[in-house]
C-alpha cells in the first residue's frame, strides 16, 4: 500500500471518523445559502435561453446557425470538444490517481467525477443537435433495420465517436454513482427525518458495508478504473481523428490525438481547480481540500502547460518544415498573423504562458490567483478549439470559398444553455450529494496518524 511522508497530512484539524461524516453531510442538512439560490436562478435562466435556442434549431433547422458551406463546423463542434475536454479530467483525475494509488485524490475525486458527468452530458447535446434532424439520431445505432438493410460505417471516426462517448458517459455515470453508494448509506443511517431516510435509502440500493461487499466494491473500482483509463485516452484521440483524417490544412497531422488528449486533461484539471476552490471557500472545507491539494494540482498544470506549449510550437515548426504551402499559409498567415490573430495569441498566452506563473510558490498558494488562472486556462482552451475548427475551414485551398464565420444568437444560446445546465448540475450536486467520498476519506485517516509519529 502506498504511503508517503512527503505530502504531509491529507486531512487537517484532527478529525475523527464521525467528524468526517458530519462535515461532509452538513451541506445536505443546512438550508441552502443565498448565493446558492441566486446561482440557481441564474443557471435556470441560462438553461431556458439554451432550451429556446435548441427548440429553434430543431424546429427550423441548422440554417439558424452561422455555419455555411465552408465553415460547416462552427460553435457546435468547438463547444463539443471543449466540454468533452473538461469532462476528461474528472475521470483522468479520479482514475489515474486511483490506479496509481495516490491517496490525495480522495477529497477531490467525487467533485471531479460529478463535473465529468455534467460536462459529458452537455457535450453530447452538440453532435445530436448538429445532426439537424435529431429525431433520426437512432440511425447511427447499428441494428438490423428495414432501411437497406444498411449498417453504419464502422470505418468512420464519427461512428467511433458515438460509440466512445456512449461508453464514456456510461462508465463515468456508473463509476460516480456506485462510488456514492456507501456515502448514501451513511446519510440513510444517520438521517433523522423520514423523508431523508427513505430517499437516501432508495439511492443507497441497500448497501450494508460488509467486508465481502467492500472486497467486491474495491474490485469493481479497479476494473472500471482500469478500463476507463483506456477510454480517457481513446475518446479524445477519436475526437482528434474526426479532424485528423480529413485533408484540411491545419487538421491533417499525426500530432492531433496526443495533442487533444493532453489539451483535454489540461482544461479538465483547470476546471477541477476552479470547482475545488469554490467548494473549499463556500463550504469551509479547508481541512479537507488543503493548500497541499491545490498546490499539487497547480504543479500538474505547469507540467501539462509545457506539453501544450511544445504542441503549439511543433505544429508551427512542422508547417514550415514540411514545405507544404497550404499548411504554411494556415499557420503563418491565418493564425499567427491574419484575421484570426487574436484567437491564436489568446490561446498561446492563456495556455502556454500564463500557467508558467505557477512556478512561483507564492502564486500557487494564493487562492485568488489560482482561481483566476484556472478560469484563464479554460478560456484559452476554448480559443484553441476555435483556432482549430474555424481558421482551417474559413480559408482553405480555394480562395473563392473563403468566408468569415460568426455565430448567431441561436448558437450562442445553445452554448449559454449548456453552461446553465452544467452549473445547475453542480449546484444540485453541492446540495443533495456528499461532495467528497466519505468512506474514502475515512480510509485515509489512519495514514494521517502514521505520519504524525
Amino acid at each position, binding site marked *: 500500500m502506498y504511503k508517503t511522508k512527503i505530502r504531509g497530512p491529507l486531512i487537517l484539524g484532527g478529525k475523527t*471518523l*464521525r467528524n468526517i*461524516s458530519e462535515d461532509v453531510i452538513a451541506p445536505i442538512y443546512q438550508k441552502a445559502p443565498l448565493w446558492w439560490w441566486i446561482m440557481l436562478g441564474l443557471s435556470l435562466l441560462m438553461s431556458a435561453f439554451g432550451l429556446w435556442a435548441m427548440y429553434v434549431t430543431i424546429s427550423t433547422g441548422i440554417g439558424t446557425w452561422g455555419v455555411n458551406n465552408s465553415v460547416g463546423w462552427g460553435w457546435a463542434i468547438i463547444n463539443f470538444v471543449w466540454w468533452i475536454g473538461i469532462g476528461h479530467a474528472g475521470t483522468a483525475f479520479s482514475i489515474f490517481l486511483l490506479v496509481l494509488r495516490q491517496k490525495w485524490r480522495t477529497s477531490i475525486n467525487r467533485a471531479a467525477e460529478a463535473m465529468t458527468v455534467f460536462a459529458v452530458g452537455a457535450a453530447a447535446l452538440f453532435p445530436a443537435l448538429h445532426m439537424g434532424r435529431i429525431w433520426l439520431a437512432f440511425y447511427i445505432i447499428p441494428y438490423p433495420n428495414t432501411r*437497406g*438493410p*444498411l*449498417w453504419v*460505417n*464502422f*470505418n468512420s471516426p464519427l461512428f*467511433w465517436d458515438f*460509440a*466512445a462517448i*456512449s*461508453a464514456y458517459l*456510461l*462508465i463515468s455515470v*456508473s463509476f460516480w454513482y*456506485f462510488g456514492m*453508494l*456507501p456515502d448514501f*448509506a*451513511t446519510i*440513510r*443511517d*444517520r438521517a433523522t427525518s423520514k423523508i431523508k431516510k427513505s430517499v437516501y*435509502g*432508495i*439511492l*443507497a*440500493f*441497500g*448497501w*450494508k*458495508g*460488509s*467486508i*465481502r*461487499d*467492500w*472486497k*467486491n*466494491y*474495491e*474490485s*469493481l473500482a479497479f*476494473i*472500471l478504473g482500469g*478500463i*476507463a483509463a*483506456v*477510454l480517457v485516452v*481513446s*475518446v479524445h484521440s*477519436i475526437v482528434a481523428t474526426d479532424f485528423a483524417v480529413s485533408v484540411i490544412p491545419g487538421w491533417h497531422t499525426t500530432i492531433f490525438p496526443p495533442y487533444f488528449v493532453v489539451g483535454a486533461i489540461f482544461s479538465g484539471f483547470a476546471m477541477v481547480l476552479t470547482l475545488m476552490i469554490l467548494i473549499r471557500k463556500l463550504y469551509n472545507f479547508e481541512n479537507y481540500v488543503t493548500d497541499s491539494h491545490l498546490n499539487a494540482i497547480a504543479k500538474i498544470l505547469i507540467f501539462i502547460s509545457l506539453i501544450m506549449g511544445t504542441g503549439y510550437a511543433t505544429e508551427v515548426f512542422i508547417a514550415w518544415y514540411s514545405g507544404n504551402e497550404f499548411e504554411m499559409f494556415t499557420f503563418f498567415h491565418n493564425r499567427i498573423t491574419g484575421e484570426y490573430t487574436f484567437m491564436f495569441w489568446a490561446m498561446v498566452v492563456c495556455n502556454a504562458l500564463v500557467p508558467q506563473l505557477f512556478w512561483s510558490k507564492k502564486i500557487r498558494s494564493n487562492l485568488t490567483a489560482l482561481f483566476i488562472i484556472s478560469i484563464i486556462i479554460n478560456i484559452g482552451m476554448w480559443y484553441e478549439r476555435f483556432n482549430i475548427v474555424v481558421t482551417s475551414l474559413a480559408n482553405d485551398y480555394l480562395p473563392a470559398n473563403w468566408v468569415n464565420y460568426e455565430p448567431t444568437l441561436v448558437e450562442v444560446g445553445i452554448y449559454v444553455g449548456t453552461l446553465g445546465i452544467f452549473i445547475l448540475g453542480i449546484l444540485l450536486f453541492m446540495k443533495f450529494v456528499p461532495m467528497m467520498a466519505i*468512506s*474514502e476519506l*475515512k*480510509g485515509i485517516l*489512519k495514514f494521517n496518524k502514521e505520519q504524525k509519529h
Partner: protein
Amino acid sequence: MTNKYIIGVFDDEETLLDAVRKVKEKDIDIRDVYTPYPSETLLEILKIKSYFTYYAFLYGFGGALALLAFMYYAAVIDWPMNFGGKPSEAFPSFIIVTIVLTIFLITVLSLFTFSVRTDIYPGRKAIMPDPRSTDDKFVMVVAKDQIRNMEEEYHQMLKDSGASEVYEKEMELKIKP
C-alpha cells in the same frame, strides 16, 4: 430464517483487527464484519478473495470476439459498402470500435455482477446488524451456535479486546461466499 448472533461493536480499526485475530485463533467462525471503509488488513486476516477480476476478463474477451464477429458479418458479409475503393474487410479500423464497445460491455456486465454479489438494487432495504457501521463503528458478527458452551468466555474476550459494546441480536443474515 432468523438466527441468533453475537454482535461486537468496536470504535476503531486497530481494536477490531486485534479482536478478529483473537477470535480466529480460537477457531470461531466469523459470520461477517461491517466497517465504514474497506480495510486491506482485515481482508488479509479473513482471507477473503474475489474472482471478480477474472469474470471481468472473461466479459472482455468474449465481448471483443463477439464484436469483431458482428462487425465482420455486418460490414463484409451482409452489406459490403464501397468507400473510395477501400476494402470492406478493414480490420484495423474495426479495432477502435471493438476496444470502446468492449469497455461498454465490461462496464454493464461488471455492474450487474457487482449488484448480484453484493445483493443490491434500487430501493433494497439494508439488512445489517448495526446501522452505526456506516458511520464510525466496526461491527463483528458471530453466530450464537458457533460459541455454544463458551458464551460468557466469548463476551469477556471481546470486552478484553476493547469492544465498546457486545450484545445479542436475532436477525436474518444473507451472506454470499
